[in-house]
């Protein structure tokens, strides 16, 4: 059973929706960027799309071969091997893993003085190994579990070396293509955390790739804590209770407590109850139940404060009912951002506009925040449009993908031309 609740204390009569989190970058950013090299490159973006489309067989093959290799979080080894084998076949200069087994391909740049540029896509998906990962290709769609999050992103990442080769593209910086492991859920971005923590040189800039949606231009991330509240009632102790507690009803009390939380309008924040499970069958009192939640705010201090409030609620209910009720953190991120007028954001918006894509920005809780919190300029881009995101019938559109890949190359060129170099 999955329940999604939004808990809010906004005085505004408007619903809690994208009003607070969406900014249409195109309307607030001066999108023209300076520099004749980049301007000329932008003029050629539509032609670039055609060039990329011409090698669609290889790109789609990469997406399918990666996507059909299951990679649930913590079990990405097989997909990592496929990733590295394909990279090696494409003649990437160096194919290796870091100390945490993140598979990495390195394309050497023309200048040894420029720091490297990272392009990352998370390797793991939500789907377990025993789910059939066979993709179906139709005239303009590809369908299969995990394709949008994030097999498409990894397949495109894998295709970049051969796209660069076919299009004759070279870069001053080394390009680091990293398929990072242990990202989603309990993975808590461990792979990319380790990669950045141990990378020995400064990093010039980064692009994080996600399957959907084409047009997303993320350059800031909220502070976030994801947690789990679990209630466990010992069956042996059942006889000691006058009325045996029900773990689901205990969690219901927790939810009621969360609903009574007062959240400020500024800094903006929200608590999402995203997941709940428990019980054994219809006619038996539930002895175990678990609730998953996420606290999000543009102030990490506020996130921690709300977490402590929730912990107090949990401790109180635990004491009053004499049940095992525990709260634990699954993952956390600090808030970080680029300014909306940062040259990378402006350049990325210009690239998207040159392709007729309207940039839309909202907060994202992903690898982006780790780059930003280390003061490395970074953006997250989506590749195409899709539907049924988190189901086994997740479907991507093929045609918009070519623009999505062109924008990645455009933004990469912008970083390579120096938009991230100013302190």
């Amino acid at each position: 059973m999955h329940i999604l609740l939004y808990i809010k204390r906004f005085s505004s009569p408007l619903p809690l929706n994208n009003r607070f989190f969406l900014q249409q970058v195109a309307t607030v950013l001066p999108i023209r960027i300076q520099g004749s090299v980049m301007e000329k490159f932008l003029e050629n973006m539509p032609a670039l799309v055609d060039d990329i489309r011409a090698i669609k067989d290889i790109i789609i093959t990469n997406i399918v071969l990666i996507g059909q290799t299951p990679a649930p979080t913590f079990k990405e080894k097989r997909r990592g091997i496929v990733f590295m084998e394909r990279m090696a076949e494409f003649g990437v200069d160096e194919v290796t893993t870091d100390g945490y087994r993140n598979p990495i391909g390195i394309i050497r740049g023309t200048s040894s003085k420029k720091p490297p540029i990272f392009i990352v896509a998370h390797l793991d998906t939500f789907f377990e190994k025993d789910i059939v990962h066979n993709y179906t290709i139709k005239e303009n769609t590809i369908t299969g579990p995990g394709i949008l999050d994030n097999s498409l992103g990894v397949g495109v990442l894998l295709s970049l070396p051969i796209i660069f080769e076919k299009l004759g593209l070279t870069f001053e910086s080394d390009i680091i293509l990293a398929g990072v492991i242990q990202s989603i859920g309990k993975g808590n971005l461990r792979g990319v955390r380790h990669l950045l923590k141990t990378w020995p040189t400064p990093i010039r800039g980064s692009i994080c790739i996600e399957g959907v949606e084409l047009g997303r231009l993320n350059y800031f991330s909220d502070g976030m804590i994801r947690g789990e509240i679990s209630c466990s009632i010992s069956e042996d102790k059942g006889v000691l209770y006058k009325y045996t507690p029900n773990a689901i009803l205990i969690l219901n009390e927790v939810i009621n407590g969360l609903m009574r939380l007062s959240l400020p309008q500024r800094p903006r924040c929200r608590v999402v109850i995203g997941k709940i499970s428990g019980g054994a069958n219809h006619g038996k009192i539930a002895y175990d139940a678990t609730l998953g939640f996420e606290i999000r705010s543009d102030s990490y201090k506020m996130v921690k404060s709300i977490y402590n409030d929730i912990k107090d609620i949990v401790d109180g209910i635990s004491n009053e009912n004499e049940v095992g009720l525990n709260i634990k953190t699954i993952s956390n991120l600090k808030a970080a951002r680029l300014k909306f007028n940062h040259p990378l954001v402006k350049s990325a918006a210009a690239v998207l506009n040159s392709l007729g894509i309207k940039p839309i920005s909202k907060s994202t809780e992903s690898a982006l925040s780790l780059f930003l919190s280390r003061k490395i300029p970074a953006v997250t881009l989506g590749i195409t449009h899709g539907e049924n995101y988190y189901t086994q019938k997740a479907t991507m559109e093929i045609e918009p993908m070519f623009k999505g890949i062109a924008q990645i190359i455009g933004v990469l060129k912008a970083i390579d031309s120096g938009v991230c170099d100013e302190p």
Partner: protein
Amino acid sequence: MSHNWLDKNTFHYSDFKDLSQLVEEKQKKGLRISLCLPTLNEEKTIAKEIIILKSELMTRYPLLDEIVVIDSGSTDHTVNIAKSFGADVYDADKILPHLEKYKGKGENLWKALYITKGDIIVYIDADIKNIHHRFAYGLIGPLLLYDNIKYVKAFYDRPISIGKNKIRPTGGGRVTELVIRPLFSLFFPELTQIIQPLSGEYAGYREVLEKIPFPIGYGVETSIILDIYEKWGLDVIAQVDLDRRIHRNQDTKALGRMSFAILKTFINRQKQLGLIDTKNNLYDEIIQYNLVESRYQPEALKIVGFERPPMIEIPEYCEKFCIKN
């Protein structure tokens, strides 16, 4: 019985994963290679097969010279999808149109000999869910690297796709184990070394395939093996482990119909070779029973078991390929 053949002529696809070597060998020998995909309502899998095989074995490594789809009259989007992804698509009925028309996989494979240009022809079923280019290069490898080998069969670890999108890791090959292997054991024990004689993926030299008849239906795989064995011996055949193939599970009745066609083909071959005498001709109908409202009702299906003659006996073929008989 010696098991030498099993040791000597059994390969793993990874033995041939150096695609540059295969391309070099192909060019050195001046050979052309055609891939044929026989289809009937395969819209779910056909695009993936074409894209992956084209990407890896045409665009990246020029191992295949053409990908040809021979369709038996699909009523779904198979034909349009195959065309949109760049395959050459043919309606089986329109190939050699003056001949009587039949429906069946064997018919498509036989007509592919007329349509394709390659010296080597690779046949791959169009319903493979986990298609990978190893399915083609694994079959081509022995033909290019071993001069004595003229025909290659695939075998697999065969998980079956069952309900609710889950895989059952073992199973499959029931007709092989219950029908073919007992028959081979009785009549040609040497052939029991072929692990999966019914696998739908195989490749061979045109010079061999054009000289044998093709049953139009299910019996084609058995018939090809028996004919090549009889004409050239077991040493020209090899088998390759292609690892894993996920396919549709078929119900027992469908397997019964398949077994009927195979048995008929096999017995007819034995009669032609003078190995058995059935006194009477075989019947053409398989009769199966359904329980309908507490009563068993028979359901008869006619399976004629017609065979196409060796393609080399067709005048249009000889003309097209400049063959003088």
